[in-house]
């Protein structure tokens, strides 16, 4: 692969080496995504992958990451979406002037998302055996969204129980351990969890994290929830 001369000249590194490094970054992203079930990959990890090989040139990691992004798109049809890590609102507000719930993040991370149209994805790509996970994700995000973006653990499980999911269930036919299934959403950065000191002791809160707040996803969730709520509220109008 040949790089634009004005960019290639910035770094005194042969194209072959750059190609190899870009390939390694892509492989890291693919394999890591598989290993951690889609949890965001910190930019720091990718940077370290590059600098650990002795490439200390300024802006070189950014160049390689951008190239990897481009190839993931052209070869695989994946978008390498950048997320900004959000902090729990309680932590953001402590001892400081009040902040919006989505406080400024302090770390970039990446997820890969298919760029295929949703109908094509649904028909040819979606793994039907794991749709229950998507369903759980949608339901949990929807509940927290309707709760204003933040909910206590107790309240969340109260709603999930109504859907047949119990907090201490370890042998659910689809999710096995339901608590772990919820925890996975925290790892994948759809949710963030925080313990808050309250009058009755520590209370765990869940709120939406950067992946759920990412515009395309958040907008879709709002749209679907609105459709469902509207349908429930006005059933006769559909006749």
């Amino acid at each position: 692969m040949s790089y634009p001369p004005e960019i290639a000249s910035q770094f005194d590194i042969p194209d072959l080496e750059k190609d190899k490094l870009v390939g390694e970054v892509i492989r890291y992203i693919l394999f890591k995504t598989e290993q951690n079930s889609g949890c965001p990959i910190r930019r720091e990890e990718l940077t370290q992958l590059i600098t650990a090989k002795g490439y200390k040139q300024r802006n070189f990691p950014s160049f390689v990451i951008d190239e990897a992004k481009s190839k993931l798109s052209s070869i695989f049809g994946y978008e390498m979406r950048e997320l900004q890590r959000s902090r729990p609102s309680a932590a953001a507000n402590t001892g400081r002037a009040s902040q919006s719930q989505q406080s400024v993040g302090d770390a970039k991370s990446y997820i890969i998302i298919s760029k295929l149209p949703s109908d094509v994805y649904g028909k040819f790509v979606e793994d039907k055996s794991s749709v229950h996970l998507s369903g759980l994700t949608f339901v949990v995000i929807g509940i927290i969204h309707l709760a204003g973006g933040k909910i206590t653990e107790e309240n969340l499980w109260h709603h999930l129980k109504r859907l047949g999911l119990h907090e201490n269930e370890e042998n659910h036919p689809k999710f096995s351990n339901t608590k772990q299934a919820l925890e996975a959403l925290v790892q994948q950065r759809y949710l963030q969890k925080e313990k808050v000191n309250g009058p009755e002791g520590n209370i765990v809160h869940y709120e939406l994290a950067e992946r759920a707040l990412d515009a395309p996803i958040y907008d879709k969730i709002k749209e679907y929830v609105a459709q469902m709520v509207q349908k429930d509220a006005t059933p006769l109008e559909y006749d």
Partner: protein
Amino acid sequence: MAALSWRHHTLIQSLLSRGPLKEDDFASIFSQLTVKNSGSRKQQERKLFNEYLKKINAEFSCVQLELRACRNQYDGHVYYGVVNNVEDDQSKLGTKYTVPQIAFYKGIVEAIIHDAEGEGCIYNTAALNIRLESQVHGATDSQSQGGAVQIPPAFKNFSMSQKEKTLDQLVNDQWLCSTPEGKIGIGVRSFLDLRSWFRTNEVPSCEVCNEAAIKPVIGMLTLPLYRVYSKGYLFFGSRLSGLAQLCPNEACNVRLHSYCLEKKFSGQRGEKVCSGCGTQLQGSTVKAELVEEITNADVHLQNSQQAESSRKRSRRSNREANADIDDTGDDSSLTSATMSKTKRVTRSSGRLTSSCKCCFSANGSLADFVVRCWMTSI
């Protein structure tokens, strides 16, 4: 080369997301994506299909992946998947299995290979009774000089219930399979990458098809753990199919798959003799129908893998330049054991230079056409 289109991306993502797909399913996806005229001839569609694969693999080369086909030796179906070509630090990440789980998997595969019945599968109970300690290099070596071999606590404490869960997971993920008789066999994913493993371990190839031809393994065959990390590599002894033959002459390195033997000498008069030393070869017991079926599959795989040979030549020259190919720095004891034991059970590994005359596929596995399969679920 022009960028891949959304159709290529769909094919790739379907394999990554859904795992190895049966040929019919994959072909169906392809047809739905590409066929414009319902009257397209099958031959044209096949040609287009091969072009798609070729284009995808050309792009994949920069990330050391490959889209290939493979035959499941249990049901005979051909599967397509994406396979990892290189064992590196990145690919070692690509597994959710823990070290004891991988050791357990290895133990199962070895048990299948060494099964006295040679059926290519073992009972569930036999799988559950596999001891992980046997996967630690030197742990069962009676020749060891009395030095204590450290068995990791995780190996010792790997409970029966963990084994059961792991076995279910491995079957679910298609690393192993559950046969109709309720036994445990090798899964589709495990069939994949045999070629790459054979290439790396210099397993001699079949004289006819250049696929690796493995005789029944005698003694402990250890599988490098890191192979499984890449979700592709698995070694399979020919006892699964019983279709590989060595030349009866001990000094001769020629080996052939039984069906290749049949194909080579079909229609020829006279005795079947080894092309290397002239020793008379035993006849194959492979049915004619299977030979024909495999021949037809040969043609397809040959068409889709012509690029493989150039990559293979380039890798071979790299391998010769880098004498130590076993330098993973991870589980090196198992790795070196594998290398040495592989060399012991195979003959001289010097004959990896023959190009495919028949099926022209990469380092094959056994008698069937191994293709690769890869990691899934993105």
